[in-house]
């Protein structure tokens, strides 16, 4: 007998999830490589080693023109890093557009991510936060739906952090800025865009770490399995 089961995650969510994972990791590694060629940050339009930095990272650089205080220069990795950074960005943006269209037109956002208004009461939120802070392992029924904190976090990542990281990244492109100069000036200038790009990336990395930690706490094999195959393993006693 064949059982027709509703998958935990639709095929499109699963495929786009892993494509975004792949592109995000590539963007992260190459972003760090590009960053170490100038680990100094500025605000406004301009900034270079002759001008004071807003802040700088206490790391060596891959350029001997940057006064880091370290006696050595890391190897230059910017060539392939820039190539791969933009290729991965294309993958992320195209995947994001596909996911976004699916989310709106197939009701994924409305059904699975938009929190019920009853869940947004301070009481409910406080209970949920407390539950998370105690690292309580969720019950098996909960594996079929996202809780309110998950929903809010995913919405923040999808509709705020990802658009911001793309915007601040594009604002650093001189050719893009020639088409949409306001996209740079609104941010406060090219160097401001670069600094914001760094901070939004930090928030995305924080999300990644917490996300993986939560998956681990909820049962790594089972949850990752569900995101790969779509099937949620049945509880042991019923197997």
């Amino acid at each position, binding site marked *: 007998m064949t059982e027709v089961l509703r998958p935990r995650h639709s095929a499109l969510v699963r495929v786009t999830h892993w494509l975004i994972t792949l592109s995000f990791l590539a963007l992260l590694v190459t972003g760090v490589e590009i960053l170490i060629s100038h680990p100094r940050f500025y605000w406004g339009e301009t900034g270079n*080693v002759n001008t004071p930095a807003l802040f700088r990272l206490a790391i060596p650089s891959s350029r001997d023109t940057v006064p880091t205080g370290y006696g050595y220069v890391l190897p230059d990795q910017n060539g392939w890093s820039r*190539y*791969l950074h933009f290729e991965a960005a294309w993958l992320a943006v195209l995947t994001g557009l596909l996911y976004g269209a699916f989310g709106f037109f197939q009701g994924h956002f409305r059904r699975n991510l938009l929190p019920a208004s009853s869940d947004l009461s301070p009481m409910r939120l406080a209970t949920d936060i407390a539950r998370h802070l105690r690292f309580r392992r969720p019950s098996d029924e909960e594996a079929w739906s996202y809780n309110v904190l998950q929903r809010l976090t995913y919405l923040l990542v999808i509709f705020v952090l990802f658009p911001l990281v793309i915007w601040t990244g594009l604002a650093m492109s001189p050719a893009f*800025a*020639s088409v949409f100069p306001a996209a*740079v000036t609104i941010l406060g200038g*090219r160097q401001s865009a670069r600094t914001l790009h760094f901070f939004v990336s930090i928030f995305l990395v924080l999300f990644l770490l917490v996300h993986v930690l939560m998956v681990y706490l909820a049962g790594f094999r089972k949850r990752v399995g569900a995101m790969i195959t779509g099937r949620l393993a049945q509880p042991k006693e019923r197997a």
Partner: protein
Amino acid sequence: MSKISRRKLLTTGLLATAGATGLGVAAKLAERYGLIPPDAGVLYGAGETLTYAAHRILTRHTPVHEFARSQISKDPFANEVSPLGAEFQRSQAGGFADWRLAVDGMVARPVSFSLADLKSFPRSSQITMIACEEGWSYIAEWSGVPLAHILNLAGALPQARYVVYRSIQPDWWDSIDMADALHPQTLLTVAMNGGELPVPFGGPLRLRVPRQLGYKNVKYITRLTLSDDLKRFGKGLGSAAPESGYAWYAGI
């Protein structure tokens, strides 16, 4: 069961054929409209092609932002250059009086200009930003002859698609497409912030391509070659940059 898989097979087959045909047509159109960069064949060429094509569709004629005089950087940074050879130093000792800019390739009249010639041509000035791929930037006032003016004087042939430019430093050569070459803000720069263009900033002659990052703004320019094909220059990737792992197009 077998019916479903046959239908599935047919649909998949049709979709795959349509997809392959679509890609083939897209590739032909991209080639026709000059949307394929010369380094499209490198490891990350797919992303590079998407970037260059998107930028060429969006930015063929757009001007970069020109800043107010008050925004000129007080501390511009001249990135380090590899040691300048004896040929440069001899010319520098003579005040660059013997500096020549040769224009050849697909032109009706191959010519050569002295610095004095270049300085006598109609001058254009712009207060624009130069940004390095590393992340830093500064704003300066650049003045010089629009590259388009030089190409007109030499009589650029209509089939020319790229301008290859060379520096007195043999390892530094690059190229831009006609959209950037004919762009009114692309300058053969001879002056900066109201004075002579200092040697560390590329004096006596630097090509300013303000819609691209610093490394396309090659210093110490000696020769321009117009061509319809970049295959026969260097390793055929369009410039020295991809030969050391950097993208040919640096608008991002």
